[in-house]
């Protein structure tokens, strides 16, 4: 069984469309769905979040970072993965959920956004989930405040709510730099 599970995971990861349990429940007549989107689900504080699998390049254990002065509190620093320098973000801080535990289960999701790598520290990586577009709620109603800006939509997976993050908001370059700003021209 364990072996089969691995195979299934591997198929999912390969991006091939495979029939899921759900598909079989509806009988063989139902065609394998092509439009299921795959997401990597992870835990931050007590909530389940997800990022599209296409945006994730690698999942790494925690690595050393260098503090960068004059940057926002959610930036842990810059890290270096095989020669590539990237900003590393504490996602809990970014989402105003406290700070990530950085325990044994903590991981860094290395994402590719606008052709540049970023590291997102999360408390735990859970699973690859597939969410059909129709069960995605585009306009999140229940969540208010600053956090709503970072959310692309809400999905359901195994009766759990999964919050899909909008990376272009989470990684908005305007939020990274704070303080010490005189002006852009380097004025006297």
């Amino acid at each position, binding site marked *: 069984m364990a072996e089969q599970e691995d195979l299934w995971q591997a198929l999912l990861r390969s991006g091939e469309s495979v029939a899921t349990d759900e598909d079989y429940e509806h009988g063989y007549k139902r065609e394998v769905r092509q439009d299921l989107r795959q997401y990597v689900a992870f835990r931050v504080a007590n909530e389940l979040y997800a990022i599209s699998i296409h945006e994730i390049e690698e999942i790494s254990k925690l690595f*050393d*970072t*260098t*503090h*960068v*002065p*004059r*940057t926002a509190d959610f*930036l842990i620093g*810059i*890290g*270096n993965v095989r*020669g590539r*320098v*990237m*900003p590393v973000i504490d996602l809990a801080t970014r989402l105003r959920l406290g700070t990530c535990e950085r325990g044994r289960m903590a991981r860094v999701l290395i994402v590719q956004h*606008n052709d*540049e*790598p*970023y590291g997102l520290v999360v408390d735990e990586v859970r699973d690859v989930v597939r969410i059909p577009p129709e069960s995605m709620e585009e306009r999140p109603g229940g969540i208010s405040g600053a956090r709503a800006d970072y959310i692309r939509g809400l999905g359901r997976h195994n009766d759990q709510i999964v919050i899909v993050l909008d990376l272009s908001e989470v*990684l908005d*370059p305007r939020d*990274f*730099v704070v*303080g*010490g*700003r*005189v002006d*852009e*021209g*380097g*004025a*006297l």
Partner: protein
Amino acid sequence: MDSNSTEFIAEAQEVIETFSRSLLELETQSRSGNLDPDLINGSFRAVHSLKGLAGLFGATSIGDLSHALENTLDSLRLGKLDVTREVLDVLFEAIELFGVLLMPKEGVGDPDADLDRFLGKLQALTRAAEQKVDNSESLEWIGEAILGVLTEYEEHRLRENLKAGRNLYRVHAAFDILAIDVGIETLKEKLKAHGEVITYLPSVDGSSDDSIELDILVGSDIDFQKMTEVVADQDVTVHRLAPPGKDGKARPPAVEDVHVPVSSSEQIPDQPEPEVVVEEPKESPRPSAREDAQPSETSLRSLSQTVRVDLRRLDVLMNLVGELGLVQANLGGVLDLLRELEQSGDVSRELQVQIRDMTRKLALLQQGILDVRMVPIGQVFDKLARVVRKVSRELDKEIRLMISGERTVLDKLIVEELSDPLMHMIRNCIDHGIEAPAERVSLGKQQVGRIELRAFPKGNRVVIEVEDDGRGMNWQKIRDAAVRRGVITADDAASISPQDALNLVFTPGFSTRDQASTVSGRGVGMDVVRHNIAKISGMIDVSTEVGRGTLFSITLPVTLAIIQALVIQSAGHTFCIPLNAVLESIMVESRDIGTVEGHEVITLRGKTLPLLHLSRLFELQPLSGHRPDPNRVYVVVVGLAQHRVGLVVDELLGQQDVVIKPLGTALRNVPGIAGATELGANRTVLLLDVGRLVDEGAHIYQTAETNSVTIGGALGG
């Protein structure tokens, strides 16, 4: 255009640059009246290959323009059209038009209308050329065998040579088939030194399996005896061709010696060639971009033996070399471990030898990659020459631009970043510096203004100077203008030194002209220049003499990809400072630090130097284990452009070559941080943006000390 368009643009730009260079040189030569036909040929080939390129990529308008231009250049090289100022003006206009067509700006002008208008101009030129065809003198004495295979161009050159009173020689040479390219090249060089090679005629006569014989038609001033000496070689015989009765000593035309192989019909141009010039423009105002067979098909090949490489790919290589450097450092660590083991003597010695060898080769590899990034500054100078030409016309001033050191090489990135600041400086020179011709004459100066553009290496940096012989800058006027614009207060102005006053031109919002002209003086000026130069770690200095001229001098590092850095520590955090911004580092006893109105300063060689504590500036949290010496600190004196400050740090850890990595979009604008680098053991370290920190320092001190004489003076020093 499709996805190939960047490739097309890059290649087209290169060809247009070549064309532009030929034109500039042509202009210089036309003034001295001694035209090199190869130059016109070069332009012709450049435009021809551009036409081919445009055809491949479906860039119709560029194709149309090159096609029409090709006709004009053909008339030029056939002597139907003279190289006059008017013609050159039109040709230079074509370069501008190419630029517009290559990268049209949204909503600016109408490139198509420009193209139509320009094609009309070219047509007028070409039409004028038709009326000036003069092939009066008979060349029959040369013999049909030769005449029959000459292209129109070759015949024209032959006539030109005869008109200039040169002797005509037929040089018969045999080449080893294996070394023919070298052989021809050597002979060509010899002949070119004494005249012009008009054409090569293949000869079947006597050609054996392992040799090829050629007849070379040469026009030259030297006499038969001399020519024989020039080409003295056992496989070469010289015949003189002369019209009958003109020279008694000459042999009769050696027509019977020449055998033209019937098979070499590709040598014969597609007749009638001139129709391309004559007919087409009459038919339609926009000649179609159809490929005609003129003049040869070989010119689609690249003009140069180069490979175009994306700079980012070089960055990847550079990174790899940097990482290899780290591996090498780690190997050093392994070596140390090995030495501690017993009986490892031979092995560790061998490892040491190998590591040393690797270090050397790594340095060579790094240098090799750096060299690939290097391009001559001449690329920018050529563009500037066009700017001078254009702006001086607009302002009705006569300028002579003198360029030297155009072969000085710099990192491609730096060269790119330089073109805008230099263009701005040149415009300023012409607009503000150089006086109107009448004014110059009345001042007893030469009517033609002079701008010198120089580049030369100085140590491991490159200096670029822009000097004019114009009216110079009056520091009192600059000071007064600065007060009027609120750049400095009247109190500051009272005590300002002449040099500091001059430096005010680099302040944002400063301009001495009250009305903005179209050329310069839009209020963004020298401050942008200074900022852009500081961005590439350069310094700019100005010196001037009223009535005599102004000299701007830019000092630049040779490359930015790898820099020498000073590694320092502050509150336990490690940073790198680009060594080219470090003037000196000194140890300072705490008791030597004074304060001026709450700000720390030291006195260094009689000048007051403001201090900046890196840990306070960056609000650094002290890392554990960090215990600074309370009695002394290290001060790193840094300066960019005109200002100097002392950065207070805890430790100096030494110097190192570092590979700079960009921080990416999100962190690009962190003030005071320029990039990151690796320092062994996968440790990432930040590189300080010294220009920015110096600016901040100056800002802090200026706002706090508006009436402090001491500091105001020290900042500029």
